[in-house]
């Protein structure tokens, strides 16, 4: 009976090792992919804004409070209108997906850590 129990536990660990590592690899790959995509989309957006000199619209932030108050709404509206809309949207979506993936990873962190410790202990014992 002990042999059978060992066989079962062995199979469970094999299964779990595969599952945990594939989960971790997929999550890490996913997160890095979205970081890269976010970086690409954001840099392209910033380049376009630089070319258009749209950032000049935000220079008023350096002025006095009265000037800021006067131009705040209109300048920001102009700035947003000058932004490349589709690219900005894609960047925001990428950021949202990235945040969700990171949040999920953090939420499951304790569980994954426990699994890794169990797996490590099991293979160390062998």
């Amino acid at each position, binding site marked *: 009976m002990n042999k059978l*129990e060992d066989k079962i536990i062995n*199979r469970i660990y094999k299964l*779990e090792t595969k599952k945990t590592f594939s989960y971790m690899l997929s999550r890490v790959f996913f997160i890095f992919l979205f970081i890269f995509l976010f970086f690409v989309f954001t840099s392209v957006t910033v380049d376009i804004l630089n070319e258009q000199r749209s950032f000049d619209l935000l220079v008023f932030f350096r002025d006095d409070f009265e000037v800021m108050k006067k131009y705040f709404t209109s300048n920001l509206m102009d700035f947003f209108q000058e932004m490349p809309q589709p690219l900005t949207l894609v960047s925001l979506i990428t950021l949202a997906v990235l945040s969700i993936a990171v949040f999920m990873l953090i939420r499951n962190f304790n*569980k994954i850590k*426990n699994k890794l410790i169990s797996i490590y202990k099991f293979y160390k014992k062998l």
Partner: protein
Amino acid sequence: MLTDKDIILKIKNGEIDYFSFIVKKFTPSIYGLISKKISKKEDVEDLVQNIFISFYKAIERFDTNKPIKPYLYRIVQNELKMFYRSRKITFSLNEEAFINENTLLVNDDYKNYLNILSNQQKKIFIYIMEGYGYEEISKKIKKPVNTIKSIVRRARIKIKDIYEQTRG
């Protein structure tokens, strides 16, 4: 002393080493139950392993307020069904009247009733319990499939009569 609920909660939290408690606790009973139905030791061991793996895979969905044993036994039933199906068993123990799903007069009680059968009927029933189909049995006994079927039917009726007499 950890309860089953604590163990399940720990496993759900990633502490998979606690699964060995479940394996150690339930393996003997499950092994006993399956070995009553299947005589081949290798098949029994494979099934027991599959049952625990299925349970492990389903543990995330498992309701910790419910007991483990009935859940495991349900997996046993499903695994057995799949096992019989994979062996292409053409006869179903449920198809005849003497099998009542609630009484589960399957292979457990069969062995007790074997003594009332003739040698030929006994031989066929043992083959059936070992997982052979009608065609395989007909080749082994060198009789047509239909003859085997009628021998089985007569034996079932015989068992049914005795069963009804003894259980009132």
